[in-house]
């Protein structure tokens, strides 16, 4: 049984100017002890998807349909109490801006310790002791329990929010662009930290716009475009043998210090999700498009074991 199984998930934003189909019929599976990264550009729905899994989609967004099975139970049909027992304890979450989850007015030690007092019912002294140990695990000294968030750097704050997310040893860590605001050297150390938790058995759902960052650390990559999952497979499958023209375009647009000294853009712009183009949503920017692409939407099909793509070029037989 996979750890997390997202099935036919649709999340729409009901705005005054129309319905934004931010996540539109997305299915995805994350196994035990597996690192899956969702890669895409701004507005592709990758963050909305992550928020959907923890039922935190901000209004006017709403989960319209689909199932999210976590260890065999549908997160979307649970009542509030039941869901709260899972969030934090079995699923941890880290955001791009650590201040979304940290309280600026309380010492970080108390904030970490609160996870233990609330969920494990131990007393404050013991909880602070555990908080101190945890800070050492995330690469800070024990003394940081007395600091307030504003006394820390961005990287240190992100370490604290990772400590909170990982305090109860959840089975799944969801990380939404946790290093985007950080400098590259600090980013690397935060990635090492997350990788360390993965080695100890936690599965990771990592959201990023940076394909190279995903390629270095993940087991599998899911590429999203305009609310749709367009390609899914192991890192090697997706970056060495990309099947979707959008993935190919993305690979050519990422500068690589060890690759060619030239990058290429994908022509055109992503669509307005209130009024997406018919058929394949990428077809107006696609240089391989055929008639079919503007008429009908391609389904995700398996082109080799574990490698899925939604593109008519692959579905129509000859490929």
């Amino acid at each position, binding site marked *: 049984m996979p750890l997390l199984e997202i099935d036919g998930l649709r999340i729409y934003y009901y705005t005054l100017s129309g319905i934004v189909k931010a996540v539109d019929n997305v299915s995805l599976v994350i196994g035990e002890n597996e690192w899956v990264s969702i890669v895409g*550009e*701004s507005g592709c729905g990758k963050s909305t998807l992550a928020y959907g899994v923890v039922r935190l989609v901000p209004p006017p967004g709403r989960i319209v349909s689909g199932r999210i099975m976590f260890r065999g139970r549908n997160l979307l049909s649970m009542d509030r109490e039941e869901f709260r027992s899972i969030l934090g304890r079995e699923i941890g979450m880290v955001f791009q801006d650590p201040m979304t989850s940290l309280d600026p007015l309380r010492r970080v030690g108390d904030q970490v310790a609160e996870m233990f007092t609330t969920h494990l019912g131990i007393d404050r002294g013991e909880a602070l002791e555990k908080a101190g140990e945890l800070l050492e695990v995330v690469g800070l000294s024990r003394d940081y329990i007395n600091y307030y968030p504003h006394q820390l*750097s961005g*990287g*240190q704050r992100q370490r604290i929010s990772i400590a909170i997310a990982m305090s109860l040893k959840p089975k799944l860590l969801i990380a939404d662009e946790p290093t985007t605001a950080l*400098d*590259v*050297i*600090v*980013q*690397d*150390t935060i990635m090492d930290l997350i990788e360390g938790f993965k080695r100890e058995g936690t599965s990771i759902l990592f959201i990023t*716009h*940076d*394909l*190279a*960052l995903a*390629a*270095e650390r993940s087991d599998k990559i899911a590429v999203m475009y305009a609310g749709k999952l367009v390609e899914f497979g192991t*890192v090697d499958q997706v*970056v060495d043998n990309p099947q979707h023209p959008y993935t190919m*375009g*993305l*690979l050519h*647009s*990422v*500068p*690589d*210090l*060890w*690759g060619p*000294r*030239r*990058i*290429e*853009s*994908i*022509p055109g*712009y*992503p669509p307005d999700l209130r009024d997406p183009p018919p058929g394949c949503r990428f077809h107006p920017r696609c240089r391989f498009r055929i008639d079919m692409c503007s008429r009908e939407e391609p389904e995700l099909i398996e082109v080799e074991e574990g490698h899925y793509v939604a593109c008519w070029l692959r579905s129509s037989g000859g490929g």
Partner: protein
Amino acid sequence: MSVVVEAVDLRKYFPVPRSIIDVLLHRPREYVRAVDGVSFKIYEGETLALIGESGCGKTTTGRLLLRLEEPTSGRIVFMGRDITRLKPRELRPLRREMQMIFQDPYASLNPRMRIGDQIAHPLLIHKLATPREAREKALEMLKRVGLTPPHEFYERYPHQLSGGQRQRVVIARAMILKPRFVVADEPVSMIDVSMRASILDLLESFRREYRLSMLFITHDISIGRIVSDRIAVMYLGRIVEMGPTEEVIRNPKHPYTRALIDAVPSIARRKRGKKLRIKGEVPDPRSPPPGCRFHPRCPFATEICRGEEPDLVEVGRDHYVRCFHLLGK
């Protein structure tokens, strides 16, 4: 080749605001040494990429060159002329020749002005065209930067454009005066990955056409590699390494440069093993460490690094490094 811009031992110290208690206790005023003795030249038609992490002083350096910030000491020489102490009135004719492109294209455009008028505006300010001519030139420029049909785009407002399109407007506005020198401060950091190349290509085409010199400021050395002839790496207000782009990236001599390069994620070398990892984070620029500023984080630091600051010395053809323990020796 002729030198277009030269920075000579530039320094900029920002005073740290003092609280009333600091004043009453006669605590000495503290300074952030944002730029602390930076020297380089940029030649005609050349792009120098200035690389560094946040707070290293790279943006301040760019602003100093354009006289958007007053240097604490040092000199700025533009086209052979010392412009360090020119008065605003004397600077005005030079403003045409030097332009800046900022990171956030939205913040650098006027939200209430049609984009065509914003592109035409510099021509009118500098009295280089009649309103009618300026309009014509702006239309040409819109076409040139790929915002077509130009008549339609002329009438639009910034909020009606995407981030990439706005950055094209910013570039058009900077280029309409045919400057000699441009400071581009993280011009693609806020642009989606799939559209970055087209913005960089646009800058490159102007560089060729106008024999433009450029200071390209970025935190991303992989972007810097694509656009530049030479790279300068800054750390805590100082240049620690400078040289031809591929030479610095393939053969870094300063441990900080090496750590920066190793930390950049790469698809081509995603399975690479050993990285040079450094400890901690950039120290407080109010009190930079004595000796080599990098020594507290440097895995190779020895006694001399703690006591003495190394000079920027030439270690290879046009390749300068500020370190006592050069890598690869």
